[in-house]
């Protein structure tokens, strides 16, 4: 089979066939806002580019208990969805602070995941919502929890013949709220120094029934502060409790110093921002309760 260097297959099966034959030599191009730069800088030198624009893998569909997003949905498409804003507001909150409008019109949710950047802005909200992803190959679909996808900076468990096709967010239990915060040097066009999402679910007595504290840019992969999450479980919300969780989160992160921020600044900001995000999430829960 002869494969042109740039191909826009008519079917997913055709694309998967090329991936099966060429593996990592063939790269899928989605928005291209990262890939094009890396190709120019010779970080990646694929022999074939597979453009999936003809397959319309950008649908946003809500079923009974799950939101399914095509991996090729652009950030702008996510921002235009009233259902995502209503059910998963921390995700569009991340999109709004992502680069600027021209990039948001091209960059895709799947691209932000597959890049496996430790600072990916959309990954903390997705993990906080217990997102799973669908990796498709010619052998079929493989579904895994997003938090298990990342191995290290730029590295993930995706196999050379797989394509990320779908992102699935389960609808949250009632009395849930989430908050996204990004710290960067500017409000636009900045790579995060720290980004995070907190999500709290409470039961009818007001005790914490589920908690997610997910941080980016403070470890080799986007991470859950598991000890801090466990510290909250079963307890009544209070400022003291949330302060304690923020301190625990600080002890769990392992940031590096780089051109954007130092190790010690990231540590300090982890505690400050986790506390701030948890307080905002609590506010949101309070408002939800009084709104009925």
């Amino acid at each position, binding site marked *: 089979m002869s494969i*042109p*260097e*740039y191909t*826009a297959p008519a079917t997913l099966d055709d694309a998967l066939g090329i991936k099966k034959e060429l593996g990592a030599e063939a790269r899928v*191009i989605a*928005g*291209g*806002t990262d890939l*094009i*730069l890396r*190709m*120019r800088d010779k970080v990646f030198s694929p022999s074939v*580019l597979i*453009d999936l*624009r003809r397959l319309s893998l950008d649908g946003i569909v809500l079923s009974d208990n799950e939101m399914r997003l095509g991996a090729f949905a652009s950030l*702008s498409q996510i921002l235009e969805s009233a259902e995502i804003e209503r059910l998963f507001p921390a995700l569009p909150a991340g999109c709004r602070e992502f*680069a*600027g*409008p*021209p*990039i948001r*019109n*091209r960059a895709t949710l799947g691209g932000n995941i597959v890049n496996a950047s430790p600072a990916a802005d959309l990954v903390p909200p997705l993990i906080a919502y217990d997102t799973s992803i669908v990796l498709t190959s010619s052998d079929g679909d493989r579904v895994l929890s997003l938090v298990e996808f990342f191995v290290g900076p730029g590295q993930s468990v995706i196999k050379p013949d797989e394509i990320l096709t779908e992102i699935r967010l389960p609808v949250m239990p009632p009395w849930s709220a989430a908050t996204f915060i990004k710290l960067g040097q500017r*409000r*636009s*066009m900045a790579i995060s120094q720290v980004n995070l999402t907190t999500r709290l679910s409470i039961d009818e007595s007001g005790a914490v029934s589920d908690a997610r504290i997910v941080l980016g840019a403070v470890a080799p992969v986007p991470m859950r502060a598991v000890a801090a999450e466990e510290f909250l479980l079963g307890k009544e919300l209070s400022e003291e409790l949330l302060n304690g969780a923020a301190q625990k989160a600080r002890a769990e992160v392992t940031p590096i110093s780089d051109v954007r921020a130092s190790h010690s600044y990231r540590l300090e900001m982890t505690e400050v921002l986790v506390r701030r995000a948890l307080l905002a999430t609590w506010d949101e829960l309070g408002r939800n309760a009084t709104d009925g």
Partner: protein
Amino acid sequence: MAEMEIKFDVNGKQVRVSAEPNKTLLSVLRENLGLTGTKDGCSSGDCGACVVMLDDRPVNSCMVLAPQAEGSSVVTIEGLASNGELHPVQRAFGETWAFQCGFCTPGILVSCYALLESNDDPTREEILTAVAGNFCRCTGYQGVVKAVEQAAAEIRAANKSGGGS
């Protein structure tokens, strides 16, 4: 890479170019089509000098490969004027002195045009968000806000009196 044939619309006219698939839309516009109004600033999606409309949305043309534009419709700075008349936002930029050196202006104008296409009464915050992906390093953004507000008022007035779209 071998060249491939790519067809798309630019400023309302269908064009057919032959280009290597790793060439950007920006290079094709400037080098193959001679549309040098769109500028090449950073070549990495940071500065916004290369912003054009692609299928009715502003994008960085340095971050689109030419074959990704196959079958699409592109509007560049050269396409904002119609029948020899500048678009209201172009005229307003001149009247309010919203630029000095002018290098970032084509990209900023396209971003502002995109905003005004969907919103003829933008707030200051919405205008600043619309140009968040465009760097201006000599004039700043106050003039841009003033120009877009002036153009928006003109578009609203024209729509009211002319019964236009």
